[in-house]
């Protein structure tokens, strides 16, 4: 996949880094490169632009990360069942543009596509964290950015996979909607990297997931990395409860199970569409003609718009039944739903975050 850039800004201090050099060498001709004293300023929203968020996505900013690289998952809270995930923030924002994406609200003020050239510092941080950890850890890079978008420019995945390949107590999760896997195929991950694809039915893809790889291409990429020794998982998230959704998600799972050996899928996570009022307003402003943003969502007790509860639970149950029919042994979990809904849909109380996180890090499947 190739994404277009209007310009690349490189923080003076970072211009000699390996990452800056790699990006500049791989840039297509004609993309202007500007050196700036402070990348944070270049990443700020250009309020004069018609769509400052979209403009930010086309502006890569290579800069130093000034705060910690490792954080808890932004979705984690006492309110929800949680998968015990640590996030490694190596980039912020994404060149793709999904109508429902929470980044529209989360990074609205600094939407420049930031890539942190000092990412090797994250490895030192991680070494310190693992020294104090009493369980295997699962670390993801795909929360504030897609893990593989622009990997053809940054080549970051190679360093990441190599680092994790040498550490049996860690699992790296690269989460993506691209098929940008060429770098991965060159490296032996020693089973320490799991690549997960967020999947949506064709109708949702066409309506809302702009510039992402088509679902069939994502599934094909999953098969290829699996064959190359990576572990794979899938996120059906957000699940959009449009008319015909049960049929659409079932057909999507048919495709997945036909292409990827089911016994080797580690997990399938499920999460219904959820939007804060601010995100919903921003999304509708940016995509006023997207019918996927006009489902039967109501304001839920957690302050987010979600499909009304019976509809949402029925859909979760139908999807879970389809997965169960496959007897794949893949672990199924719900993202950002409360314990009552978790129990209702999956028939068991949610495991403690640490336990689920450790099981996912270990690669333990439901039957494992």
């Amino acid at each position, binding site marked *: 996949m190739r994404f277009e850039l209007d310009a690349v800004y490189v923080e003076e201090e970072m211009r000699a880094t390996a990452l800056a050099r790699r990006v500049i060498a791989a840039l297509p001709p004609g993309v202007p490169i500007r050196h700036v004293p402070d990348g944070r300023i270049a990443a700020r929203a250009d309020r004069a632009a018609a769509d400052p968020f979209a403009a930010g996505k086309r502006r890569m900013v290579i800069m130093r990360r000034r705060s910690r690289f490792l954080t808890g998952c932004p979705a984690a809270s006492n309110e929800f069942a949680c998968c015990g995930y640590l996030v490694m923030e190596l980039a912020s924002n994404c060149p793709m543009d999904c109508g429902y994406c929470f980044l529209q609200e989360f990074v609205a003020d600094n939407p420049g596509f930031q890539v942190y050239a000092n990412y090797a510092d994250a490895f030192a941080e991680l070494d310190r964290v693992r020294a104090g950890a009493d369980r295997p850890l699962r670390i993801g890079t795909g929360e504030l950015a897609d893990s593989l978008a622009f990997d053809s420019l940054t080549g970051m995945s190679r360093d990441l996979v190599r680092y994790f390949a040498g550490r049996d107590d860690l699992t790296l999760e690269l989460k993506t909607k691209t098929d940008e896997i060429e770098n991965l195929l060159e490296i032996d991950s020693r089973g320490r990297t799991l690549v997960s694809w967020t999947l949506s039915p064709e109708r949702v893809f066409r309506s809302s997931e702009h510039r992402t790889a088509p679902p069939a291409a994502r599934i094909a990429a999953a098969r290829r990395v699996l064959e190359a020794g990576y572990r794979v998982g899938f996120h059906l998230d957000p699940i959009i409860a449009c008319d015909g959704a049960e049929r659409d998600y079932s057909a999507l799972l048919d495709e997945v199970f036909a292409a990827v050996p089911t016994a080797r899928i580690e997990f399938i996570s499920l999460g219904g569409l959820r939007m804060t009022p601010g995100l919903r307003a921003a999304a509708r402003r940016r995509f006023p003609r997207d019918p996927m943003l006009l489902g039967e969502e109501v304001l839920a007790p957690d302050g987010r718009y979600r499909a009304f509860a019976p509809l949402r*639970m029925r859909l979760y149950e139908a999807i879970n039944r389809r997965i169960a029919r496959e007897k794949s042994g893949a672990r199924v979990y719900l993202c950002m739903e409360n314990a009552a809904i978790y129990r209702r849909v999956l028939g068991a109380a949610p495991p403690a975050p640490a336990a689920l996180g450790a099981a996912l890090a270990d690669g333990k499947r439901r039957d494992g």
Partner: protein
Amino acid sequence: MSAPADEAAIREWAAARRLPAPYLARWLELGPEDRAALLETAVGLRMRAGQLIAAFDLMEEISVRDARPVAAILARAEVRRILDGSGSGPGRAAALLGALRAIRFPRLARATERITCEIAALGLPRGIRIAPPRELASGEIRIELAAHGSEDLRGLLDALSRRAAELARIADLVAGVGWNDDEI
């Protein structure tokens, strides 16, 4: 180019009702038929600005979702019945909003209707209130008892336990269980 014939009337209506400028702008951006149909509705039902805003938002959303113009939504039989009906303007305006909500949220409307009917069919005494969550936003049902003294309370509890099976079914419906395929 001269302004469309109804523009002055729309502006006049908006000024009289203090319709916020962004809504006026959106109204004027509609195609001629949609704009006129909305004006006819606003005038005919003597709508307040808040009602027009709510109706406008719902109609725009329906229009995008169903790829149908606003005039076509206002021409639907269930809407036309309200517009052509004989009740008071404010009453019909409220009914119009209800009808538009049901078109915008058809599955929610059906689900709410079924649950409401099932609760009514229980014939529970006054003092027991079965409250499904607002807009079925959560899967949780509430049962409230208002009793004067122990005898009263015992009566309510007896009435509840006689209807335990039906109540359990309603609780399941609220939690997404027991629906027919085409219902939601």
